Structures are given as structure tokens and as C-alpha cells.
């Protein structure tokens, strides 16, 4: 069973989490050209191998996480809070 190490709750079964999708996507500004929005919403790298993605610890702390996962082996390399401020705070040990 795949386990995800939630930085807030510890290692938990992946069934506690909800998959968010490709975490490498940055949505453009609201007034950006339509093509930019089309690309962000509809197009995917769809990587076979290491991919950054978002998961929500739905049945736990309900925090959104950035997870580095291999899409072929399902191995997980790193887990961090999706919110950059929280990630920085955890990093600095505050």
C-alpha cells in the first residue's frame, strides 16, 4: 500500500488522501491571453517517471501537499506543504 508522509500528521495510507493533479501547473493571471489559460487547464506533460503533484490529506489535517511521486513505481520521494509560507515555516523549524 502506498503511504504518504504528511508533514503535519505523519505517514498515512494514501487512501486518506485525495489526488489533486499535476502540481507543476501554475495558473496564469486572470487577464492573461486565452491561449495561456487553455494550455494551463487542458494540456499535460503526463510524465512517466518522477512527477510533482498535489494531494489533499482529506481524511486527516485537510492540508494540501506537494508530492514528488514516480508514476510508474508509485515510489514517493518528497512531501511538503503546498503553501509556500507553511513549507518555509516547517523548513526553518518554527
Amino acid at each position, binding site marked *: *500500500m502506498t503511504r504518504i508522509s504528511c508533514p503535519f500528521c505523519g505517514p498515512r495510507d*494514501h487512501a486518506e488522501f485525495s*489526488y489533486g*493533479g499535476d502540481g507543476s501547473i501554475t495558473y496564469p493571471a486572470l487577464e492573461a491571453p486565452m491561449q495561456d489559460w487553455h494550455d494551463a*487547464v487542458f*494540456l*499535460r506533460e503526463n510524465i512517466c517517471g518522477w512527477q510533482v*503533484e498535489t494531494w489533499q490529506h482529506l481524511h486527516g489535517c485537510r492540508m494540501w501537499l506537494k508530492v514528488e511521486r514516480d*508514476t510508474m513505481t508509485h515510489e514517493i520521494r518528497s512531501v511538503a506543504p503546498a503553501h509556500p509560507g507553511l513549507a518555509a515555516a516547517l523548513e526553518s523549524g518554527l
Partner: protein
Amino acid sequence: MTRFSAWNVFWQGMSGQRGWSRQWRDPESKPHYDAVIVGGGLHGLATAYYLAKTYGLRNAAVLEKGWIGGGNAGRNTTIVRSNYARPGNRQFYEHSLKLWEELSHELNYNVMFSQRSHIALLHSPGAIDAAARNYNTLRRTGTPDAEIWGLEQLKQVVPHLNYAAGARFPVMGAAVQKRAGTARHDAVVWGYARAADQLGVDILQNCAVTGVERDGGRITALETTRGRITAGKVGFAVAGNTSRLWSMAGLGRLPIESHKLQAFVSEPLKPLLDQVMVFGMGGAHFYISQSDKGGMVFGGDLDWYTSYAQRGNLPIVQDVAEAAMSVMPCLGRVKLLRHWAGVVDMSMDGSHFICRTPLDNLYLNTGWNYGGFKATPAAGWWFADLIANGRPAPIIADFDLKRFERGLQIDERGAGPDPKLHG
């Protein structure tokens, strides 16, 4: 190659079954083909067959990285139906069903197509209204066999569902397509392979594409594990791995994600379910039929996260078992025989792509989501038409990669641009 006939079967039966010949050749690869289809699945083989049969393109090859019938062709639940309501899908799947009805004769191969009805359970007045609206649309546009059944009629036909007052999901009726059913997936593979081979198509197994050579806007050759092959036209039909091949051709991103879908088969039982039965309520999803060998063949949702691994996970096993027990409690003591996962390319609106690409001589067949099996004959038919003529016929004109830019989503579920929701 021996042609199948009643006399032939009888004679072989009398003479020890020793006179059968190979069903298709195992040829060496030629250095050049006029058309190369990458992907020896159902769609690839069907495409090659119609290319040769309808358009006379005999110097063609199908490249398969493993063995034919070993990928998604052997990993589905064999359901065939045409009860799609959105414009485009409706015409396409009805055409496919009409081709299924003649397929065994067409291929001289018994694909065991069994039109045993497809019964979708309905659990609320709203669901009945929505189904009635869709099925009325079908009846008025060329799919005459779509019916809405009340509870009494359903009880008579399928008596052993959970009709109890305390059922978790009380059944109120059903949406039924009577010409829908199942086919033997292996037989469809073998039938198309044999028929295409007979028309001169080379089926090259253990032939993985490792590189794509380009000359500007054209593909010139494919590097494969069985040597370099130059090609006039190239078709990609590699469900689950389209993005990998697409990036090999230097083409960037696609509106698809690879997800895995699990399926299950039980130990053989005596006749229990004579239809395809489908249950979907809230987040629960379950479909089941009984194979001619007696095994209960069933499945549920995707695994929810992108994956290229052809193996499943346990939460889905539990999910599917719970759904099974809530609608067919009599399955509770039945042993599971096997379970497996296939990798499907889920698109952004739940519908497929049969289209031209940014490269002049490259054509794309992808994004079949859950539903590639039932589409097989029409997908092969129209993909061959596209490759032969270099332009999309009206029936597939909207199934192109640019439809999202035009503001068009052929979204049967109304789930929006989130591939995991289009199960």
C-alpha cells in the same frame, strides 16, 4: 490460412483437429511501409484491417511492443453499447454498434458478440428524468432500442438485485439498451489480426518504437527494437502511452492523462446474470456481466491518480466489493479469481481524439477513457478513413486536439476538465 465454416469445423472434428493452419504470419519487418500503425491493440488492428480492405493499402504494418492482445485489449470488461447522448458521440457509437452486429461475418471469426442488454440502474426521480431525456434523444435519432423500465419490469428480468426496503441504494427503475451486450475481447483481437494479415498487413510483435525520426513537419522513420522502418504515413494508437510516444516525436503536451483502471473476474458460476448491469450513485460505480465461461466480470472506478503501472491497489478492491454487495448481495460468498489494471488515456472532457496532428503524415487515435472496447470497429473504420484520405470525415470532425480552443467539450458526464472524473 484455413477459412472457418460449418463444414470445416465438422471435418476437423472428425479428423483429429490436425488440419488447422496458423491464423496469421509472423513476418520479418520490411524497411519501408506505406502506412505504419503503432499499437497492436484492438484499434490498431482494426485500423490496419480497414486500411487494407476499404482503401487497398496493402503495404502496411502494425507495430506492437509486446504481443497482440496483451495490453488494454486483454484488460477490459468487454462491454459494447451505444447509449451516448452528446452530439458526435451518439452517431459514432451507434455506427460502432452496427459494425459490431456484423463483425463475426465480416471477419469470418466468431467474436461471440452477445446482445444481452445493458441495464443501468436508476435510484432517484431525478436520475430517471435525466435518463429519460437522454434515451428519448437516442430513440429519435437512430437508436431505437433505448428503453426506460419501471421497477416491476426490472424485477421480472433481474430478480436477484437488492430490492429490500432497507437497501443502501433503493432501486427505482432502469435505463436499458437492448442491442448492447458483450463480445469476447481476445476473439476480436484475433479476428482483426487474421483478417488484416490475410490482406497483406504485417503484424510485427515485440516491436517497440524507441525513437521517431523527423524531417521538419513530417515523420520519416521509426526506430524500433526490430530495426529502422521508414513510413509514408504513421498512425499512433497506443492507449495509455500516447504521451510518451508524442514526446518522442518532439510534440510537447497533450490534453490527456494516463490513469489505471482495474477489472475483476470471479470463479465460474452457473448462469446468474444474463445482462450487463451498471450501477452508479454518488461516488460509487460498478458494472458487471457474466462471461460465457461463467466468471463474473466486473469493475468500478479509476484509481484516481495518474499512473503508468499496470497494477492496481487495494482501496479500489474494497470500493468495488462494497458497490457489488450493495446492489447484488448474492455475490458475497463468490471467490475472486483474478484482478488486474490497464492504463487508459483519460482526456479532458471524457471523449476521444481521432485527428490530424501538427505533423503532415502523423495521425492520432487516443483519449478513449473507459470506453475504447466498444468503439473498436468504428474507431478502426474512421481512423483508417482519416489516414487514407488525409482529412477527417464529418462524423469525427469535432474529435480533434483543437476542440478546447474552440470552446467545445464533448463531456458526457458534465464533469469538467478533470480526467480522473470521466470514469
